[in-house]
């Protein structure tokens, strides 16, 4: 069903006047626990929780950060990061890590100097709440008593997961509704992105994939009277090429996907939204292992060309990459766990200051293979892994290296090392940040003058919770075990966030 604009109008004309949005009436998490007090008490005892503390202001800016080590002169550009930050506002602390309002950071690197800007995104949701001087909207896992009605997903859009720069436009990404256009100079929220008429407010993933030629592929996890997967094909110039709506029974929460040269690949976990359960978004989902994991493969050049595979039940957030062998076998990876307890428990408990079970809940690196004959297999390693990244030039093609965060030892409470995984030699190199530091996602930035896949840098942030400051690391991707070449230190701590991207210019 490749829809043209006219088909949209036709299809929408027959649909009822419908607010296809869950009404978050009450959440099982909304007990009488005072989350803010619990967190504040725990923070006094456990400095690691600094990563989940609301920043002291809505805007930050520092020129010429103090640089430890030698910043590579050839690395210039902007490193963007996004993540939830406003966990506390108007007397209410969020009850899930995913619910804090988005906070965009820009590290501008030029002439061996690094400047920092950060701003809480002034979404319509946050603006309405600030005007009302109270929280109005429930979220992914947070219940707001006597909140405002949610008529459309963007009413509660917190723009807090990732950030994408595409064809000169900076987009703060959520996944329940629209992407948000942000002014790259002021970091101010400007408006919701619509990819075309009839696409206003249609969900857009936090993990679009960009082919080496700039073509953008994306999806939307759209829940309603019938659950649908929205598929987007966007040109390198940012124009919508085609779109499709794929109805999916027992649609499971989908956060990321992968692309090969010819296909889009969706690993659909058995974490299913159940209609009629009025609760927070996540609490309306149920783990149904009997469904298994289902993998949907869609041809890039024909969204109607679709095939399905079946795998054992598993839940994961992030993929590294996918590619196709000469015989048509599709291979891809994902950080996977046996179930979805991470999203139900660990990512919620941390908000009241409980880190027990936090580290154990994260997934392991897994490789998945889909044969043209219909068979599928999953090979899960024992290596705790999250935030996998690959060189942008390898997206959809066979990659030799994956970079991810990992655990450094058996008793780790969270991801503590930066890992370079060599898929050809099944070999790992790692740098252990040591106790006292929490690394975040590091992205690969290629350097000029070499075609080697790992010729470049890894750039990412770290929280030093003992010194109560955050920093921006740069590693030589060919020698990550040597530790960072340099770290640009902020004079303040930043809350832990999710995803970033690097641009050689501003956007």
């Amino acid at each position, binding site marked *: 069903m490749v*829809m043209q604009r006219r088909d*949209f109008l036709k*299809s*929408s*004309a*027959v*649909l*009822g*006047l*419908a*607010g*296809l*949005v*869950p*009404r978050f*009436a009450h959440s099982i998490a909304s007990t009488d626990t005072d989350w803010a007090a619990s967190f504040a008490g725990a923070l006094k005892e456990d400095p690691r929780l600094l990563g989940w503390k609301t920043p002291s202001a809505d805007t930050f800016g520092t020129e010429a950060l103090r640089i430890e080590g030698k910043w590579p002169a050839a690395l210039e550009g902007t490193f963007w990061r996004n993540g939830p930050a406003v966990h506390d506002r108007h007397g209410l602390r969020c009850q899930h890590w995913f619910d804090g309002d988005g906070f965009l950071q820009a590290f501008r690197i030029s002439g061996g100097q690094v400047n920092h800007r950060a701003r809480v995104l002034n979404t319509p949701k946050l603006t309405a709440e600030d005007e009302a001087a109270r929280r109005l909207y429930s979220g992914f896992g947070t219940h707001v008593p006597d909140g405002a*009605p*949610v*008529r*459309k*997903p963007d009413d509660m859009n917190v723009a807090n997961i990732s950030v994408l720069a595409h064809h000169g436009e900076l987009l703060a990404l959520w996944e329940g509704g629209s992407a948000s256009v942000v002014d790259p100079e002021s970091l101010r929220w400007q408006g919701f992105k619509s990819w075309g008429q*009839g*696409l*206003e*407010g*249609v969900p857009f993933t936090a993990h679009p994939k960009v082919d080496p030629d700039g073509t953008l592929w994306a999806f939307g996890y*759209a*829940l*309603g*009277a019938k659950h*649908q997967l*929205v598929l987007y094909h966007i040109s390198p110039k940012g124009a919508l090429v085609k*779109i499709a*709506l794929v109805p999916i029974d027992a649609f499971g929460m989908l956060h990321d996907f992968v692309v090969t040269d010819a296909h889009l690949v969706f690993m659909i976990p058995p974490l299913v939204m159940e*209609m*009629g359960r*009025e609760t927070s978004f996540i609490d309306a989902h149920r783990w149904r292992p009997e469904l298994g994991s289902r993998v949907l493969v869609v041809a890039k050049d024909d969204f109607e060309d679709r095939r399905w595979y079946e795998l054992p039940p598993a839940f994961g957030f992030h993929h590294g990459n996918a590619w196709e062998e000469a015989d048509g076998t599709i291979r891809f990876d994902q950080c996977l766990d046996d179930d979805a307890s991470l999203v139900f428990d660990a990512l919620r408990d941390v908000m009241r200051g409980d880190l027990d079970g936090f580290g154990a809940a994260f997934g392991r690196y897994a490789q998945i293979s889909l044969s043209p004959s219909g068979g599928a297999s999953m090979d899960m390693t024992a290596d705790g892994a999250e935030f996998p990244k690959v060189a942008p030039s390898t997206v959809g093609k066979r990659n030799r290296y994956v970079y991810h965060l990992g655990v450094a030892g058996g008793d780790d409470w969270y991801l503590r090392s930066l890992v370079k995984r060599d898929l050809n030699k099944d070999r790992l190199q790692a740098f252990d940040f040591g106790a006292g530091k929490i690394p975040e996602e590091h992205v690969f930035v290629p350097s000029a003058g070499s075609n080697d896949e790992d010729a470049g840098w890894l750039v990412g942030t770290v929280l030093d919770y003992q010194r109560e400051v955050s920093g921006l690391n740069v590693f030589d991707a060919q020698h990550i075990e040597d530790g960072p070449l340099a770290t640009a230190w902020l004079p303040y701590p930043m809350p832990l966030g999710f995803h970033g991207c690097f641009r050689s210019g501003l956007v």
Partner: protein
Amino acid sequence: MKISLSAMCLSLFLFSVPVLAGDLVLEVKGVRSDQGDVLGAVHVRTPGVKFPSRDGEGTVHNFKTLAREGTITVVFKDVAPGDYALTAFHDEDRSGEINSNALGIPTEGYAFGNDATGFMGPPKFEDVAVTLEEGAESVTASGSLMY
């Protein structure tokens, strides 16, 4: 002459209405601009028609007024007792119908009586409707446009 004949016809018509009839007052609040029109409908419970229909089925009154920022009030006089559900939308582009995105979610402001909301869909007729009791002079159905 013609005018008074019409007036007489009208008054005859009025007298023919059952004495139990009352006024149905419709209030559409929160109109955000003077742009375009506000369209509304009064629905009654109709077997075989899913509320709210979009093709006019199950509606007994419809109105269209120029949009004016704030609240728009429309009165239908001499309405029989019963349950009435108000739906309205702000047709800012004067397309004559409510614009929706590909998923069917309205992209123009819309209102349901009693500001009723649904779960993953429109609210139920019972939650939207007001009752004009027998012998009552009037009842007000009120809803705020949400954009």
